[in-house]
């Protein structure tokens, strides 16, 4: 079981309120991703759940029991740190066995579980090495191994992939998702990378300055961002957000249109503009188009077959059914 409920949890460091009172419901077996810009309080929130930080107000409930004052060890949660936090003087085997040893399990049971975990994580050949003799990806797996042997109620990950190179990150992302499917244990995963959030999550929690902006499935956030912050944060490349007359014509202060929902054409369309920088990814090409109607350039996604030179004049037409409209406070107008 790993159901976590935050009830008006808040956190202040001195006079600074990093997290204003916040409610959040995490169901058993869910993969929840906290995403938001740097410094928005993701790590702090995770540490509050883990018990490494004391809450300034509110309650943390784990499986319906008040865990607010329970020590981190007794909450039954396991955490994977950004720096991995492996014990450098212990072998991989001892690292993974450490929580079991602390729990007072007997030696044979410890060995059995370590070997099992090593098997799952492809670490069998490295059990007698020290962490210093492993690559970044292997260290990452040891840290995960140390978490899974405890059979915790929930896993907490704090930007576990940020120290890995791009290729390895994609690989580990899949492995963690795979692990989640197999163990079906609650996982809370912190990242500032919206691609990680979109690909892994059952439920995304978008945070901004300690405030939950929106909670929902990846596709909900993509199709129905509830305000301009979420709209700009989710999706890659970013959604085009424009204001002014053109927005007013749709009865909104701000309108948002994703790069993939704009048609680019050489001869006709709604907005006239000139092509600026283009980014070729092979399959797709992103054009930055300067339109007469808007001050900022629009990003447009086109198929990789489309070729347009710098300075070419083009026409853009948005798919109006996919248009997002926001009022003057940035809230979504349905």
């Amino acid at each position, binding site marked *: 079981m790993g159901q976590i409920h935050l009830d008006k949890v808040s956190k202040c460091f001195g006079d600074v309120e990093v997290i204003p009172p916040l409610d959040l419901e995490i169901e058993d077996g869910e993969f929840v991703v906290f995403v938001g810009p740097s410094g928005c309080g993701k790590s702090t929130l995770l540490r509050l759940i883990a018990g*490494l930080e004391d809450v300034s107000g509110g309650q943390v409930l784990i499986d319906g029991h008040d865990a607010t004052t329970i020590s981190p*060890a007794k909450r039954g949660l396991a955490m994977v*740190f950004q720096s991995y*936090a492996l*014990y450098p003087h212990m072998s991989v085997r001892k690292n993974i066995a*450490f929580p079991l040893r602390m729990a007072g399990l007997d030696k044979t049971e410890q060995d059995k579980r370590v070997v099992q975990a090593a098997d799952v994580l492809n670490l069998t050949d490295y059990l007698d090495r020290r962490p210093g003799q492993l690559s970044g990806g292997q260290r990452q797996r040891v840290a995960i191994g140390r978490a899974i042997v405890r059979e915790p109620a929930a896993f907490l990950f704090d930007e576990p992939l940020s120290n890995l190179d791009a290729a390895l990150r994609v690989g580990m992302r899949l492995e963690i998702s795979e692990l989640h499917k197999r163990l079906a244990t609650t996982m809370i995963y912190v990242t500032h990378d919206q691609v990680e959030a979109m690909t892994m999550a059952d439920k995304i929690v978008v945070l901004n300055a300690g405030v939950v902006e929106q909670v929902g499935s990846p596709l909900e956030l993509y199709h129905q961002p509830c305000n301009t912050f979420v709209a700009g944060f989710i999706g890659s490349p970013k959604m085009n957000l424009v204001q002014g007359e053109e927005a007013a014509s749709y009865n909104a202060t701000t309108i948002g249109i994703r790069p993939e929902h704009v048609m680019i054409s050489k001869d006709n369309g709604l907005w006239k503009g000139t092509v600026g920088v283009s980014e070729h990814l092979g399959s797709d090409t992103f054009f930055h188009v300067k339109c007469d109607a808007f001050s900022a350039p629009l990003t447009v996604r086109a198929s990789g077959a489309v070729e347009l030179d710098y300075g070419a004049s083009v026409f853009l037409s948005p798919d109006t059914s996919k248009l997002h409209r926001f009022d003057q406070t940035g809230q979504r107008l349905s």
Partner: protein
Amino acid sequence: MATQHSRSAARLMMAPAVILLLGWMLLPLTMTLVLSFKKYLPLRGGDLGWVGFDNYVRFVSSSAFWPAVTTTLIVVGGVLIITVALGVLLALLLDQPMWGQGIVRILVIAPFFVMPTVSGLVWKNMFMDPVNGFFAHLSKAFGAEPIQWLSQASLPSLIMIISWQWLPFATLILLTAIQSLDSEQVEAAEMDGAGAISRFRFIVLPHLARAMTVVVLIQTIFLLSVFAEIFVTTAGAFGTKTLTYLIFQRVLESQNVGLGSAGGVYAIILANLVALFLMRVVGKNLDA
């Protein structure tokens, strides 16, 4: 950059320093070796010629030799144990956030700046004096008979004085080591269910191993040649005569330079034995 040319140029430029250092070390060492094979009594005829291994045999067969070696080892060992143990405790304490941290840290380092002679005298007269000392007053306040520290408990007193002097050094080095411990490691251990004592034993202590080794090795070098503290407190009486002090007595009090030099050579051998032993026991902590 390390071409043949630049390497020979570097050698040439380092030469003066190397030669000076070699001379600095080799000259006294050779002098000691040469004198140890001579009968040399400055006030009773000066150089009286070669005597072979006579001085060596006499130095060892003197009834003061083995007690001096034992005393030296007890003092060094005692001070090492006390400074490392208390140093770890103090470092842990100083690492906690507290009010007036800066001042407390300076106060803790202070004893290190007091000259050994001065600290020896201060301890002898202000703390351990059986009539006017602080400890005597303390005993009397509790109605007990004051202890004659420097005569009845001479060795423990000496170890106490020297430990007081070296505690700041150990604390300082161990404190920097504790501060370099990754806080996420401690938090990970906390989540893994390790209590405060387990965290200390399995995370903090192994992390401190290297710093502790450095403290032990450096202190040993200096403790083997402790002199001023003994000179001003007991003057070698009441079983506080270390090897260094015995050599001093032979050379200056008995005016026998040859015998003292032979003692000096024994001191070098003892220091090397201790170093060998320490490297065997704790040296592996220095490997990365």
